[in-house]
């Protein structure tokens, strides 16, 4: 018989045991009667011989080896019964736990989806990322993207890896449908099979597509297929004009396919890229992914790549000296959300801890009032471990039920949470409840159950039963007081940590939103601009096209000024370059850096920059005239110290000869309101777009944005401006259109989001801690009612009694605050490291947040105190 079998047939087995023993007794009695004893005496002797029937049965049950299971079942039913007897207690405990576990589970679900789950490609553990590594470092480290020739060599020579490559692109789709800018990827023909992606329609790229001069083919995303081809099966073979070039649609990707972050709509063969960089062993612009062949190991692949690297370094010393290739497991690229997520999980765990402390003190209060019952059971023969097990079964039942409710809450809550995330949460589509989450929730529930159940369970009495049995409950209360205070103190300490963290974030938000961004945020619209693909052919046409765009925009009613800019303040993307103040430039990598920004003359007016010295650019600063730059105040200090910067020369990494500083403007918070203070490169430099050398012009044109100052609400200007830019050829588009105010707001989105969540957590913590204090004090004072009765009978006033109770709680509160402050200081350091723009925990934060807590805690203790003061002395004394 298996143990579950035994469990199911418990009733039957008990019955059989009874029957067997009864048979024995009856036979024995009958035999004794036959020997001449009278019936009564015979039964007595038979019973005596057998021994106590209950003990025998108990030993037989033990012998069956399913004792623990029987006990568990019994404890479970007992726990259920006791919980049902006190529905109020059960409801409060379950709600508290459900909130704590639910919130923790939501955070873990997000962490699981974003950080822990492997990539959603086939057999992700066999995928590796290849990078170039140099034995020297620049300010960006020693890891590099691949060059196309290096990639080809590695692919040809590796026998343990299947290797594929891709890179980011983007461009204007003009046919079919309206012209619009889309993100794209150039992929090698091996990539999709390597990832195990099968197309929804059509075919993938073949090796013969993946070379120069092959007929242009394109694979489109499922979304683009729906938008531009209405999901028609006839899309395969139809033309798609991308960046002015007609492609034939070869295939459609499955819905939800992602490659490297944001959505991409157009996939073209990498090998068809005509850029000269494709032959350049110094143009690092290719991402290389690979899959380990069956049986191959990462270290074998690594050794092989090192060999290739060494050979190439000998063959091409100019580009490849000191350069090798490394392979590491391919991980999802989720940017820096990890720190935010772990931070939130930490915060939410504190809430769960408070919830556990709360339930523990509730359970403890009950355990103490049940102390006599427990002592009675010990006296009747229950073992201590048996009692501890029974208490733990009860808390495990609470924990698991709370966990089930918590998982339900999490299932409801996780989608709104993801939607609410500032910006877009990377891998949001991967966030859902799976077995890992359920396992986590189970673990969290059991751990909480153990955490809040252990203290009451270990209080199960063992020795000195007699005083407990003899004493009134009153005398017992004193011994549990320290444990109760322990819970209150830890709850308060945890609440302090969360409150102070929320306070720090609040103060930071306030400070950051009051900062001067350096530009006038009102009524500015920024957008990236894609020129008509036809104009990109030669530099003369590019310059005319830009002039034309600016002209058209300027003529739109409501526009006050228009400028081009390559780095828009507070938007992603930047271009730090090295500079020197003398012709003898220090070696690359050692130079000081400056954020270089090419702009047109009206930029000063559009952004409302403060001109501190000299002049800004005008139309005379053009190709052939003196090369000029304008610097900001930070750069002026950094490069020239106290000297007058205007008229000085600078040598910068842009292929221009020494440039002359003609003006100084105010500092702009390019890195966002929060990030700028800690940015690595804070110096800023502007140079005229008109003086960008021809060789860079095409590349620059892909990066330029326009910025427009409007006289009216900028949102209303978007459509007219789009229309104006579209031009005769109908293929020039504005994209990533934003107001500067929105960009500034977004640069604080993370801080705002954290503030909101920490605010909620801190509020929750405050509420739970207050409930905890209330519960513990209500319990402790109810135990002291007879004492209060005596005091009042001896002349204490109601006020004295209130003070007595409050003094008790004040002691706990201040101890908790003390512990909390030191913990909060430590937590503050963590926050400072993880959140941009955070400042040290100032005393003012404590000064504001701690009174909030003390007042709430005192309010919670006042209710039981007042109740105690209204005790009728005679009634109280009669309770004895």
């Amino acid at each position, binding site marked *: 018989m298996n143990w579950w079998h035994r469990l199911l047939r418990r009733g039957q087995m008990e019955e*059989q045991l009874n*029957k*067997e*023993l009864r*048979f*024995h007794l*009856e*036979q*024995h009695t009958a*035999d004794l009667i036959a020997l001449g004893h009278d019936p009564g005496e015979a039964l007595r002797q038979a019973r005596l*011989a*057998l*021994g*106590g029937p209950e*003990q*025998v049965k108990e*030993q*037989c049950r*033990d*012998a*069956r*080896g399913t004792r623990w299971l029987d006990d568990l079942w019994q404890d479970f039913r007992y726990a259920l019964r006791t919980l049902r007897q006190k529905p109020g207690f059960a409801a409060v405990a379950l709600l508290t736990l459900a909130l704590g576990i639910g919130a923790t589970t939501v955070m873990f679900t997000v962490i699981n989806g974003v950080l822990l789950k492997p990539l959603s490609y086939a057999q992700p553990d066999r995928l590796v990322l290849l990078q170039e590594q140099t034995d020297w470092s620049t300010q960006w480290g020693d890891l590099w993207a691949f060059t196309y020739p290096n990639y080809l060599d590695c692919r040809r020579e590796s026998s343990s890896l299947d290797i594929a490559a891709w890179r980011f692109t983007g461009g204007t789709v003009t046919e079919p449908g309206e012209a619009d800018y889309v993100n794209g990827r150039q992929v090698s023909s091996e990539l999709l099979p390597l990832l195990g992606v099968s197309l929804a329609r059509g075919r993938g790229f073949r090796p013969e597509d993946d070379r120069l001069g092959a007929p242009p083919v394109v694979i489109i995303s499922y979304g683009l297929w729906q938008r531009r081809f209405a999901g028609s099966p006839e899309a395969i073979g139809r033309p798609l004009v991308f960046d002015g070039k007609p492609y034939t649609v070869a295939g459609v990707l499955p819905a939800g396919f992602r490659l490297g972050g944001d959505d991409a709509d157009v996939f073209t063969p990498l090998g068809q890229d005509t850029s000269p960089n494709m032959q350049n062993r110094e143009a690092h612009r290719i991402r290389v992914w690979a899959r380990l062949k069956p049986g191959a190991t990462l270290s074998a692949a690594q050794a092989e790549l090192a060999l290739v690297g060494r050979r190439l370094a000998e063959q091409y010393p100019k580009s490849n000296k000191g350069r090798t290739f490394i392979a590491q497991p391919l991980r999802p690229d989720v940017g820096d959300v990890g720190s935010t997520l772990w931070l939130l999980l930490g915060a939410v765990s504190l809430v769960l801890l408070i919830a556990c402390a709360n339930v523990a003190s509730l359970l403890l209060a009950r355990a103490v009032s049940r102390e006599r019952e427990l002592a009675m059971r010990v006296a009747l023969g229950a073992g201590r471990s048996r009692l501890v097990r029974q208490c733990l079964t009860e808390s495990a039942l609470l924990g698991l039920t709370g966990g089930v409710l918590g998982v339900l809450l999490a299932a409801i809550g996780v989608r709104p949470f993801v939607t609410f995330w500032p910006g877009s949460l990377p891998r949001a589509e991967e966030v859902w409840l799976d077995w890992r989450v359920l396992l986590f929730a189970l673990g969290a529930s059991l751990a909480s159950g153990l955490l809040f159940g252990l203290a009451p369970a270990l209080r199960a009495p063992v020795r000195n039963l007699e005083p407990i049995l003899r004493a009134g409950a009153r005398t017992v209360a004193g011994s549990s007081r320290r444990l109760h205070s322990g819970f209150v103190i830890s709850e308060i300490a945890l609440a302090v940590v969360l409150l102070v963290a929320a306070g720090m974030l609040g103060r930071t938000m306030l400070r950051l939103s009051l900062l001067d961004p350096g530009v006038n945020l009102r009524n500015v619209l920024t957008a990236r601009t894609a020129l008509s693909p036809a104009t990109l052919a030669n530099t003369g046409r590019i310059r005319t096209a830009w002039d034309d765009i600016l002209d058209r925009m300027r003529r739109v009613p409501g526009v006050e000024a228009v400028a081009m800019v390559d780095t828009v303040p507070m938007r992603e993307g930047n271009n730090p370059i090295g500079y020197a103040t003398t012709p003898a430039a220090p070696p690359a990598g050692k130079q000081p850096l400056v954020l270089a920004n090419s702009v047109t003359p009206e930029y000063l007016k559009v952004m409302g920059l403060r001109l501190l010295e000299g002049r800004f650019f005008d139309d005379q600063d053009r190709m052939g005239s003196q090369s000029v730059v304008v610097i900001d105040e930070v750069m002026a200090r950094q490069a020239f110290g106290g000297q007058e910067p205007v008229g000085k020369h600078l040598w910068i990494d842009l292929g221009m000869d020494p440039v002359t500083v003609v003006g100084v403007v105010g500092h702009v918070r390019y890195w966002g309101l929060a990030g700028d203070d800690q940015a690595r490169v804070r110096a800023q430099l502007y140079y005229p777009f008109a003086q960008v050398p021809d060789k860079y012009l095409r590349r620059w044109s892909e990066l330029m944005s326009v910025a427009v100052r409007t006289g009216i609400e900028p949102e209303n200007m978007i459509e007219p401006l789009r229309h104006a830019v579209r031009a005769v050829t109908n293929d020039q588009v504005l994209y990533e259109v934003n107001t500067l105010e929105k960009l500034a707001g977004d640069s604080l989105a993370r801080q705002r989001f954290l503030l909101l969540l920490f605010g909620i957590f801190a509020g929750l913590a405050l509420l739970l801690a207050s409930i905890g204090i209330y519960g513990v004090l209500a319990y402790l004072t109810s135990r002291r009612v007879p004492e209060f009765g005596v005091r009042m009978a001896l002349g204490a006033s109601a006020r004295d009694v209130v003070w007595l109770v409050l003094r008790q709680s004040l002691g706990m509160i201040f101890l908790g605050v003390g512990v909390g402050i030191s913990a909060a200081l430590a937590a503050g350091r963590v926050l400072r490291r993880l959140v941009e723009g955070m400042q040290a925990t100032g005393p003012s934060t404590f000064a504001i947040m701690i009174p909030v807590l003390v007042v709430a805690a005192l309010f919670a203790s006042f209710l039981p105190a007042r109740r105690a003061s209204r005790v009728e002395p005679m009634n109280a004394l009669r309770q004895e």
Partner: protein
Amino acid sequence: MTSKSDLPQGTLDLLILKIAALGPVHGYAIAQRLQQVSRDVVQVPQGSLYPALHRLENRGLLAADWKETETGREAKFYRLTRKGRAQLETETASWQRLAEAVGLILRLSEGGAE
């Protein structure tokens, strides 16, 4: 009555197995038989008989069926399983070895005293 001795640890199981080896038998009969065969020397506390039976059943050395006795009552009859028989043989052998060894030693000490 005064010459009753307690069973050495573990021998109760061996005796039960031996009696069950003679054919299916119920608990009361085992108690009777033990007492008769040992001529009342071995006093089996009846209270420990049933836990021992259940333990042996649980270990698969005994199997049990409900059958009618000759008096027409239902009783739980225990019989030896194949595993039980093997256990009985090894335990009997080791018991005899032990008994001989103990006997040898006792005789030796008597000879020394003469």
